[in-house]
């Protein structure tokens, strides 16, 4: 009898404690917001412009999932060494995760692998050459190149000179884009010329030079930076009037397209890419229990259809 009542008392006490614990926990959960998860985004460009939409997506996701994005740009475009230093610094400074747009897919793979042992590291836009460092979303680069190529063929390339502006070729995504493009247009009846640019700071001058040498009918830029530069060069009438195509976009690109400087662009939904990249990180850190499976769709857009309801959503994210 006595033991029985003892057990009962213990039970009641345990019960009360458990309840109190639950109550307190609930309380603290509601009153005390969790700290922000720090995510360092390391760009491969000097400004955020080329990743504008991507960044908007990231910031939206960050505010949804209580993350804090620190967007880091380089002092020199595509400087792999600087990226390595930055990654080391960010890890040392206790960032929770890294999103990397690799300036050099090969050169950065080692450090990215090393970092991946400690904190989640995902690549956006430009991947690294390692299986251990995942991309935040499945790469569509090859398909985008291919789509552009198919469209060129469809429009007719007979006897035309197609100049592909090779820049940032140390980034695998750019290489993929070119592969996709070449895959579609090789064997077509056009002449394919590739030219490496980006050796100096003055893109426009390089472009003008290259165009003057080859006198192409069609110019394809593989990334927005070169695309915009080419459009600006075209605007300044520094060379003839080749048709300009490109992959990916910035807000300037649309303007150039409207002005007729750019013929068409393949655009992917960078907003989604950005959003999903942060989502991936948060998921890897187990800081979110949302399930989001958004597709990163892409489309070929010309000036005449850029305001169709689908395309305007792709080109101009509704961000406030």
């Amino acid at each position, binding site marked *: 009898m006595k033991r029985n009542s003892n057990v009962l008392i213990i039970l009641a006490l345990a019960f009360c404690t458990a309840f109190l614990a*639950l109550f307190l926990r609930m309380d603290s959960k509601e009153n005390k917001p969790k700290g922000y998860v720090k995510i360092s985004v390391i760009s491969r460009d000097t400004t955020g412009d080329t990743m504008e939409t991507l960044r908007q997506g990231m910031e939206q996701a960050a505010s949804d999932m209580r993350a804090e994005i620190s967007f880091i740009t380089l002092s020199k475009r595509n400087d792999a060494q600087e990226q390595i230093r930055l990654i080391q610094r960010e890890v040392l400074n206790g960032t929770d995760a890294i999103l990397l747009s690799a300036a050099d897919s090969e050169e950065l793979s080692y450090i990215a692998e090393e970092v991946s042992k400690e904190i989640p590291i995902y690549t956006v836009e430009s991947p690294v050459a390692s299986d251990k460092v995942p991309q935040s979303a499945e790469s569509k680069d090859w398909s985008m190149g291919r789509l552009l190529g198919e469209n060129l063929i469809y429009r007719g390339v007979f006897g035309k000179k197609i100049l592909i502006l090779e820049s940032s070729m140390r980034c695998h995504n750019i290489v993929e884009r070119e592969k996709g493009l070449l895959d579609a247009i090789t064997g077509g009846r056009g002449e394919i010329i590739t030219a490496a640019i980006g050796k100096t700071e003055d893109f426009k001058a390089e472009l003008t030079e290259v165009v003057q040498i080859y006198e192409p009918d069609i110019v394809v830029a593989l990334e927005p930076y070169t695309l915009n530069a080419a459009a600006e060069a075209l605007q300044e009438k520094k060379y003839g009037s080749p048709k300009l195509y490109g992959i990916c976009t910035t807000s300037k690109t649309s303007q150039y397209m409207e002005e007729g400087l750019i013929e068409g662009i393949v655009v992917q939904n960078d907003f989604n890419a950005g959003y999903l990249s942060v989502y991936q990180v948060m998921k890897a850190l187990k800081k979110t229990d949302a399930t989001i499976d958004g597709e990163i769709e892409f489309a070929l857009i010309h000036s005449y259809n850029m305001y169709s309801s689908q395309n305007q959503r792709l080109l*101009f994210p*509704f961000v406030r």
Partner: protein
Amino acid sequence: MANKIQKLIQYFRKKNIRVLLSMCFTFVAVAGVLLIGTSLFIRFRTANEATVEETHKRIVEQVNLGLDSYLRSIMKVSDVMYFRVIKNCDMLEEGFNSDMNLLYEANRDSLVSIAVFKRDGSLVDAVPLAFLKQTAHPEKQGWFLDAVTKIENLHFSTPHVQNLFNDADYRYRWVVSLSRAIELTYGGKTESGVLLVDMNFTGIEQLFRNAKLGDTGYLYLINNKGEIIYHPRQQLIYSNLEQENNQVAAAYEDGSHIEEFLGEKRMVTVKTVGYTGWKIIGVTPMADMWKDTFQIHIFVLFILLFTSLLLFVANGFISSKIADPILELEKSVKELERGYLDIPIAIGGTHEIRHLGETIQSMVQQMRKLMEDIVIQQEEKRKSEFDALQSQIHPHFLYNTLDSIVWMVENERYEEAIVMVTSLAGFFRIGLSKGKNIITVEDELKHAKNYITIQSMRFRDRFTFQIDAQPEVLGMATIKLIIQPLLENAVYHGMEYLDGEGKIQVNAYLHGQELYIDVIDNGIGIPQEKIEELLKRDTIHRGKGSGIGLRNVHERIQCYFGEEYGLSIYSEPDEGTMIRIRLPQKQYTEDAAVRGEFL
């Protein structure tokens, strides 16, 4: 089913009363608590839901008011622009740019642009930007077509990117266009055209952002076709990262609805905005609504469990209070059953149980006393029999009798000696009667006769005697040796001091339900006070012969047949004495005689 219930009942029956009681109490109490708890809880929940619903309605109502006045202010811009500016203005004489500018500057926060187009889509004037893009084709855009197809109305478009004007900043804004058909005056002639007022989302956004529906609730705006005008997560929906139930919501009536969307139950509050047909939709996930009350849920649950626990403990206590005395009592009774009569009976608990215990206790005491009595009685019986027997073989009697016989033989009175010896033999034979206590009245009378014969011969005919019996009494049963002591008494006390001739009469007859054997003498009689003492057990009475004799007979009769039987003594000094033996009328059987019992 019935079988199971039966089994259950069986099970409970086997359980002891305490467990049963506490189980029943607990069951009832917990059921009560649960019932009360649940009903309170449900009430609370419905009340809560109603409150939330009411609050949300109010919020949506407020947003509606805000939105309405906001849209009206925009419409007013369009109205003023048209009725005050354009109508009064001949385009050939003067422009209306400054007025338009004024309107724009006054509403700069909510407007993106104001523009006037001719019917063919060419720009008449616009603020703040006025260079139409080369690629812009206003006449092909939805708002333009709406305006020219239904010229009497104002038209609000769905959100789209404003793409009409050259902007050196590469700005692309999402706007909602308000368009209407207008008439432009050119030198007195009118020409139709379209007035466009593009509004930005700042105003709408502020209205919708500031209105909070719980923690995760939100508001969005759709047009009558279900297309989203404003949504706090518009881009996510545009990029298919999230879904909204806007198409379904378009069909909702104003008021609150419960819908299930993507596996989530949510409360939707709908309010249609005037004129535009837009709908404000307030969405609150049900889970969110209940999250606020989650603490209360937990609390209620806790209280319920705690109360149950308390009740459980309390019931255990109460039932043990009630049941323990019963159990104790039961245990005592069990002991009793096993034959331990002298253990104490547990008395405790409530009045009823105490009473029960007390009763059992007194019963047991009674029983014990009775049993003790029986033992004493038995002992006494044996003793009196033994006494009786002993008195039979009274050495004086035998000695005197033998002495008389010797005397008769010496005097050659053989006849008499023979009678004497025969009588003596008969006397002893019946007196011993194979150890049986019960004999027939006939035998007893014979025995008496033998005795009285011996005595009368010894006392030389100092007295006469007569033994009469009704024939029907002869076969009846009696205990032996009851008449002889009376005779002995009559002979020694009645005859001894008698001067005249003594007379002893024995009558056996039936009287009512009883059998009477009267022994009557005409001796000196017994004083009254002595009569009373004679039959009393504890009187020590030692006289000649044996007073023990009478008492012994009396007790033996009572011992065998009960208190109502026995001896009655009626005596009158100098007249004589009658001692009456009262016995029940019982036929003699061999069995009963062997067992020696009648009762």
